[in-house]
Structure formats: C-alpha cells, structure tokens
C-alpha cells in the first residue's frame, strides 16, 4: 500500500476547495484539511481497500467539521463561529464581487444545507453518496438540497432588491 500517500495527496486540492467553500475562511479551511488528514491517517484501517477513497476522505472531513462545530458551540466564549463573522471576513483583494457575495450568502445557510449543496454541486457526488457521507437518509439530502438552493437564490436576489422573479407555480407535496 505504498501508493497510499500519493493517492491521498491527489485529493488534497479537492479537500481544500471544499473546506474553503464550507468554512468561508482560508485559515479555517486549511486547519480543517489538516485535521482531516490527521484523523484519516489514524483511522486508516477503517478505510476498506478498493472502496472510494475520495468519498471516504469527505466522510472524515464531514465528521471533523461537525465535531468542530459542536466544539465551537460548547466553547463559544473561546471561539467565534465563522457564521457569525461571515460579514466581517476579510476578502482577498483580487476576488471579484460575485465570488464574495456568493461565499457570504453561502455562509448564511445552515451548515448542514451548505454541506449538501457543496458536495452535490461542486464535488459532483451522488445523492446516495452524500447521504452516506453525512449519515442521513437520501430524503433528507434532497430536502436540504432543495432548501439550500431556494434560500441561496433568495439571498443572492436580495442583493438586487425587488428584481426577484415570480414564485414558481409548483404544488406543495402533502
């Protein structure tokens, strides 16, 4: 299994981008990746050889992220949740406005919706894979995805005041 590290290294850019979009902060993101790699390494024997290494790494990152969020809740006087400071985050000087707006709006989504939206849209993972990674039923993945998309749309439209399109005429499922 000498190729292990090389295989893992190949996924680091993916993990970094996911962590970056998830946390909205470059430092928090690389800390998250670092913690993920360390935990993945300790739990290496839990990975089943031949199964999807990338999906497994995202699972480990999900766990680290959720644990971190719990820890943040318990130690609120020590740590500031990135959600609370999303508006104050210093933006990279050259980032276009659109990117900033999108990341800010993204940070306003509940974290479980943000995770699902990013895993599906950016990381191209299937709904069943995302269900496994986040340990919820597929139905929950779908409802989180749906809420995330409509909420993000609202947030993005909120920037341009009343220019919102008419609500879509779909029936609510009872």
């Amino acid at each position, binding site marked *: 299994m000498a190729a292990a590290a090389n295989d893992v290294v190949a996924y680091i850019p993916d993990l970094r981008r996911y962590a970056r979009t998830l946390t909205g902060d470059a430092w928090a993101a690389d800390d998250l990746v670092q913690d993920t790699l360390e935990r993945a390494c300790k739990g290496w024997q839990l990975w089943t050889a031949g199964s999807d290494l990338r999906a497994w790494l995202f699972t480990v990152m999900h766990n680290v992220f959720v644990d971190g969020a719990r820890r943040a809740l318990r130690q609120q006087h020590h740590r500031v949740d990135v959600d609370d400071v999303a508006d104050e985050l210093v933006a990279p000087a050259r980032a276009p406005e659109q990117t900033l707006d999108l990341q800010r709006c993204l940070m306003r989504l509940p974290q479980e919706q943000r995770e699902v939206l990013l895993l599906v849209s950016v990381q191209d993972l299937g709904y069943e894979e995302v269900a496994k990674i986040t340990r919820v039923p597929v*139905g929950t993945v779908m409802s989180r995805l749906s809420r995330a998309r409509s909420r993000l749309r609202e947030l993005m439209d909120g920037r341009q005041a009343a220019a919102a399109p008419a609500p879509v005429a779909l029936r609510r499922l009872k």
Partner: protein
Amino acid sequence: MKDAPTLLAGEAELHAFVDGRLAADERAAVQARLDADPAAAAQVREWQELREALRGLHAGLLDDPVPPALLAAAQQFDHRTSRLGQWQRWGGIAASLLLAFGVGWGSHGQWRAQQEVAGSPAVRARLVSTFGHEAMVAHAVFSPEVRHPVEVEARQQEHLVQWLSKRLNRPLKVPNLGQQGYELVGGRLLPGEKGARAQFMYQNPRGDRITLYIGALDANGGAPAGETAFRFTSQGDVATFYWVDDGFGYALAGKLPRATLLVLSESVYQQL
C-alpha cells in the same frame, strides 16, 4: 416522507436533472416537461446558474500548490502503513536536497532502527544535531522560493503566531530583527523528526533571507533535551546556529558569515 417536508411535487427530478443524475431516458422526459412548463424551466435555469457559480468558487485552489504542512500530513499515510523512513515525509522536494547534502544522513535510518533510550545523553545529542540539520534543510528548501516562500505572510502576523502556536502546542513569539535590517516575511509549518516545526522567514533590503526554525525536542515524552549552548554547523554556504532552551529547539540559518549569524542568533535568543 417526513424527511422531505419541503420538497415539492416533481422537484426531485428537476434537481437530478440539474446535477446530471438522470439516465438518458429520464433526462429526455424531464426535458419534455421543461419545454411545456416555463416556470419549471426558469427554476432549472436558476439552479444551473447557481451550480455553475458555486463550481467557480475558489476553483483556483485546485491549481495552487499544496501547502507543505498538508503534504506532510498526507505522507503520514505511508509512514503508518509501511514504516518508510522519516525523511520521506518531506516528499519530493526534499529528496533531491537530501541527495545534494548527502553527507551524514546515513545515520538516520540506523537511528530509527536502533532502540531509542529517551533522555540518554547520546540520544539527546543526536536529537539536537538532527534538529540543526532539519533547520538547514528547511532553509535550503524554502529560502529560494519566489512565489511561495511562506504559507502565511507577515501582514497576518497575529494569525500566523496563533496558528503556529496551536500546531506546536506552545505560545510562540516572533523575534524582531529590524535593528539588524531583517523584516519578517512570514512563516510556515513543517514536519520534523519529533513533531511539528515552525519556520519564520526574514529578509533584508538586499533580499538575503534567514530562517528561524522552532520545535519541541522532548524525546518520546521522556526527559526534554533541556538546555544547550549555541552550536554551529554549516553545509555548502548555509550556516546554522542552533540551541535548546527549556526543551524547545531553535535554529537560525542563512547564507551568512558565522560572525554575522551569531549576532542575529544572540538577538533571537535574548528575545525568546
């Protein structure tokens, strides 16, 4: 369906359409539906735009070089699975350097192979001199870097210090070498023989760079290496002064004459 209270009738297939999760025939069916239903088509277009915008978010990170600290963390997989030599954690960049340095490195493998008696004078001495070598290699690897000499730049000094302090498990201080003409460029996290190492890089107006390398030298949780006097080592044109203070190793490396480096080292020592 209590898991999906907010999903509308026919909505799931629209998401699947946007995310490319449908088989060809299902896709065609949804397309037919969209052709007949402008509202649904508009909805799908919005989601597609959103999806594309999200995929563009921080996409530049995919092409960025992986930070050495993360590379090092990944190298642990090999270390765990096949007990490869410690120095392979450094990855490719360092491998060529090790060849370049050559001399004196054979002892590493033997050292790992032999039983380590934590705290014994011989082990302690080797620990300290290994630290000096690490510092020199780290200097040689990163000081010529033009684009990414550091992971965190000096203008984010507060964050840099917090971050490295957390990783090294000890509050760090960044010495000020402004009087000697050296300003902080930034810092990075590196893997060392005995755990995490911090490297701070300084530069003078002529572009000469020196690096300060810091890390704990407690051998396997045993007796710390305590304190040592300044020691000097050099390889090629890179000179290094290194010492141990309160179980923590410090090394200052640069392409400088011994006397100049000594003055800088004393300044660092006094400030720490």
